[in-house]
């Protein structure tokens, strides 16, 4: 059974306007790392909110680990399985100490204190923030705040984390920290990752990319498959990583370069 399954899902915020999502069919297996790209307003955040029942579909079904989100009795369990991290790190941290922030979620689940203690330590370690457990969150950098927000989710022991543009407001260092953290959680802890981003270069390490356009899934494929179609993406107002475009332009000049996705691969293929 797939971890996440959407069958014929529509969603409308408002009957007067075009639906935000139309006939979405999607399956995500446990352990996958999926990146979602798409223009502003294409429905990415709406899709994300359907996954942990911040929204329920207007038509169709969202099934999480066999549980239908239409059934209110499942909500608590689903929210524990699917954690959400948002764009702005400042809006997500509430406590005056980092470890209290991380403990907040498990406390709400009614987990006994000794177990919370363990989970908080483990979660902070997983995001590389154990040294900061006594810090006030507002003194941390943006990337550190996002890692604490992620730790707060991990402490609930979710199977999947959905991150909605988690790096949009971070500086280059913070972006690197967050991307390394979520790849680590995926590879080492087996947590399923659904990662929404406008940074095309952040998606090259994903197992699969979903391309959204005007409320529909335009296509899905591996990074190589998706970024091979440069013109198709540009038509949707999207882009390919700069290295991919550079390789494409160099090929037009008769230089032989294999499929590449990263700076390292490009440099190695040019100077081997």
């Amino acid at each position, binding site marked *: 059974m797939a971890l996440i399954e959407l069958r014929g899902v529509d969603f409308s915020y408002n009957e007067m306007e075009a639906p935000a999502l139309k006939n979405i069919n999607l399956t995500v297996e446990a352990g996958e790392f999926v990146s979602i790209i798409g223009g502003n307003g294409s429905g990415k955040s709406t899709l994300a909110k359907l996954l942990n029942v911040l929204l329920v579909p207007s038509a169709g079904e969202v099934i999480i680990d066999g549980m239908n989100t239409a059934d209110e009795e499942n909500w608590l369990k689903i929210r524990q399985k699917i954690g959400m991290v948002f764009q702005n790190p400042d809006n997500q941290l509430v406590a005056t100490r980092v470890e209290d922030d991380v403990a907040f979620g498990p406390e709400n689940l009614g987990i006994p204190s000794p177990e919370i203690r363990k989970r908080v330590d483990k979660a902070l370690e997983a995001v590389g923030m154990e040294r900061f457990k006594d810090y006030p969150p507002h003194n941390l950098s943006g990337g550190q705040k996002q890692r604490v927000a992620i730790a707060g989710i991990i402490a609930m022991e979710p199977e999947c984390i959905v991150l909605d543009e988690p790096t949009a407001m971070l*500086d280059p260092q913070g972006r690197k920290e967050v991307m390394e953290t979520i790849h680590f959680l995926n590879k080492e802890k087996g947590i399923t990752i659904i990662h929404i981003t*406008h940074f095309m270069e952040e998606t090259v390490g994903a197992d699969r990319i979903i391309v959204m356009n005007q409320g529909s899934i335009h296509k899905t494929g591996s990074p190589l498959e998706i970024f091979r179609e440069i013109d198709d993406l540009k038509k949707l107002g999207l882009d390919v990583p700069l290295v991919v475009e550079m390789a494409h332009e160099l090929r037009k000049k008769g230089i032989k370069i294999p499929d590449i996705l990263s700076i390292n691969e490009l440099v190695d293929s040019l100077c081997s």
Partner: protein
Amino acid sequence: MLIELKNVSHIYADDFQGTEALKNINLKIRDHEFIGLVGHTGSGKSTLVQLLNGLIKPSSGSVIIDGVNITEEKTGLLGIRRKIGLVFQYPEHQLFEETVFGDVAFGPRNLGLSEEEVEVRVRESLELVGLDYEEFKDRSPFNLSGGQQRKVAIAGVLAMKPEVLILDEPSAGLDPQGRQQLISLLEYLYNKKGMTIILVSHRMEEIAHLANRVIVMSEGEIIFDDNPAKVFSEVERIRELGLDLPEITEILWRLNRKGLKVRTDIFSLAEAVEEISRELRGSEIC
């Protein structure tokens, strides 16, 4: 318009540790410069740009605009904010009217313009940022996606027709097309309208492509202040400061290290491709 900062330091009143957000900054900004302002989070960029249009007063030192010391003058701040438009970091937090039209019209209405003139300006500004006037004017800004809200906020500042435009991380959260539109808009405002532009961004490729002067900040101080080619040749220092090189620079730099002697002061893709293929043809190494 000349903007001058003299020995400016700033400590936020509510910062109990008393960290200096800015330390003894000296800076001159002349007409028709395009300045890229970069630095890690907390380096003082937002504090600096808010000083420039009088939103905050420095703890010490002076901010002089067109010969007027705005740190002393109580009056005239309104005039300054009209001439120096600031698009805030997270501007969507500043949206408050019921409709997109109302939000963009807020500034021009405050200038006392006629309702016809206000409408012309709202239409113009929305089209400039790539939002269709008819489609968006009556929508609530709160029901827009983040990127759309960002555009509305930029339109609101453009509707004031400022001489100097300051944008604090305006492309954060914009999709690739929105970012491209923003870049084209800034090029248009700079080249065709002769505006002075100060752009705060973490996207070094944007900065390298657009700016003719790059200011790098760290811990409240100016570390570099020079043209993009000079600044981005400081590869090690830029990395130490937690910043990126523009991706093109990074590629050219690595090729260079591998023995392909390409120039590293190129910031456009087409030129870089030209340079690499030319070097490859003449080279034995690669």
